């Protein structure tokens, strides 16, 4: 980084948007993979998804119980990374490269 990049410059904004979007899309992809993968698994492998785990069918256990902690984990990762990203951007914007 230049020692005092102009925060109103085109590069600063582009970099900011790109990095934020990359983080958001990465997490959204993990979420979407499970969200849209589960109906597909139900469709293609009904036998496997109907196997029993402690009374639950596999698919009921995933959707009715395990899905929630999975999403909590994703959002926790997102918040941690996005806050780190903001700290970095603040440091860059104020002319102190690195964080």
């Amino acid at each position: 980084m230049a020692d005092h990049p102009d925060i109103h410059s085109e590069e600063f904004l582009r970099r900011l948007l790109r990095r934020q979007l990359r983080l958001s899309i990465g997490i959204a992809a993990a979420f979407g993979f499970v969200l849209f993968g589960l109906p597909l698994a139900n469709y293609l492998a009904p036998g496997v998804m109907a196997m029993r785990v402690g009374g639950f069918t596999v698919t009921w256990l995933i959707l009715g119980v395990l899905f929630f902690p999975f999403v909590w984990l994703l959002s926790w990762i997102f918040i941690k990374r996005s806050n780190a990203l903001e700290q970095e951007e603040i440091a860059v914007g104020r002319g102190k490269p690195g964080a």
Partner: protein
Amino acid sequence: MDPFVLTFCVLMVVVTIGMGFWAQRKSRTAHDFFVAGRSVSVGWNASAISGEYLSAASFMGVAGMVMSMGYDVLWYPVCYACGYLFLLLFIAGPLRRFGAYTIPDFAEGRFDSPLFRKIAVVFVLFIGFFYTMPQMKGAGVALGFIFRDVPYWGGVVVVGAVITFNVAMGGMKGITLVQAFQYWAKMFAISVPIFVLMSVHGGYGRQLGINRASENEPILVATTEIERPKQAPADSAWLNPFGKLTSKPAAKAGLNTEQQRPFALLYTYSLIIALVCGTAGLPHILVRFYTNPDGAAAKRTTFWVMILIGVFYLFPPIFGAMGRNILPELYAQSGYKGTDGVVLKLPMVLNARSGLLPWGSILSGVTSAGAFAAFMSTFSGLLVSLTGALAHDIYGRMLRPRSSESERLRAFRICAVLCGAISVGLGLLVESFEINKMVGWAFAIAATSYFPLLFLSSWWRGMTMKGAATGMLAGGTLSLIAVVSTMVADQALWAKPLAAFYNGHPLARTLAEQPAIWALTLAIILMIVVSKATAREVPDDIRMKMLVLHAPEGLGLKQEYIAADPTPQAKAHGEMAHPQSPRDPLKGAAAPDVAAGE
């Protein structure tokens, strides 16, 4: 009428009104009324958002639908809770940094277009009133169920009056306190009875194990055969995916079970999109994010909301599974006399085993009070956002931009009463409509109009006002028309040809019942194409706007678009309104960068 049920419900109403009075003494300024002084702490705000979000449809409807339709219904609670992840990833941060009260503020600020503000206001009112209808209907029916002699209109009027009073007294700040309290009341009311029931009748897994996944699966739980009325779905259709909910359009066309599956899969995908994107686009949820002190707090709040709502949503399906085994006779009745009332009725079975105290009645009183809290809190949230749109956007920005603080406060109260009265009127009209259908409409419209608007305007600088308006109006209107057409085909006699068409074309019917998958795509394509065609109209200072939307607040770029507020009351985090010195200078974290238009 059970005395315990009566006592708990009356207690819930009294506490709600009492908190409204208490909050009135605390809320002084216009800022308090519209965004709770921006001073709501993360814990309070997360509880309040969750309390507002968990409506009667969640508290009673999800359990009833799981009982009557099985696995497919689990998508509702999961997507209601997980839609917040989309909000968190793409919308919460930028919206809060932009510093606007409402979506219309955002619409005008982002596109420099007073016209778009007007369009957005109309849409907020439209979706909001749409969403109040099922809440009112829930209130009327549930009240009639809990108190046998209260007619439908009585329930609607009582609930409407209590909440309108609360909103007019305390505004956003008062409602925040009440809703936070109501979240914990609902959480208690849904979880404690289910733990007692599970300890007596066996856990979640055991309840599911009583149902056989297929003909040749051995019975997992030794139990006497449960006799269910003929309306109840078969074990495998209930327990497995692609059951009654998602395969209905194909089943109407006379296809066999194997042929129904592709349509059911498509239905499931479209439903998921509507629920996830709809959550991220409901105006009364979004308005809450402006009550956070800053963007980092907005993110933390969303995280806690997901946990609070997710934990809550574990429980209603257990009621559904248990009701299927313990109270199968509910299948024979419809509405709140049947499966929709399972949350209120199920605890009563404990009376048969109780000793000294009628534990069943007590726990049923607890769930009934929870149901009361549910429709009261969601309706109050909707009323705040509707009143905000009328008082802030229409009165404060369009009719009387130079009005004084006290005029604004009075306008807020008058608008609250007006909106409350309209909601009650609408509630009286929809007695014959299904609650879940109406909720589904509101989500489908929000998912195909506001969600693409917010998402693209925050991340794509090429968006123009014309592109945004075209996509939003086309997406929202077309999905509304599609959904209503299936309702009409089912119920109106003059729509026979349409019904015949839908019966012959299961694909068309599936896509009309769940329009999100195509309407969202269409809205996004329209937004992009029209914006490209009108690229010259991109606001000149778009780079600054994008910077304000995305740059960390620590860089001091935050810009306030709340131009019309004459006495800005930004406060340090967590501080309550200070009646003696209403003109305190700006202080604390929100202070240094209030720039435009103040």
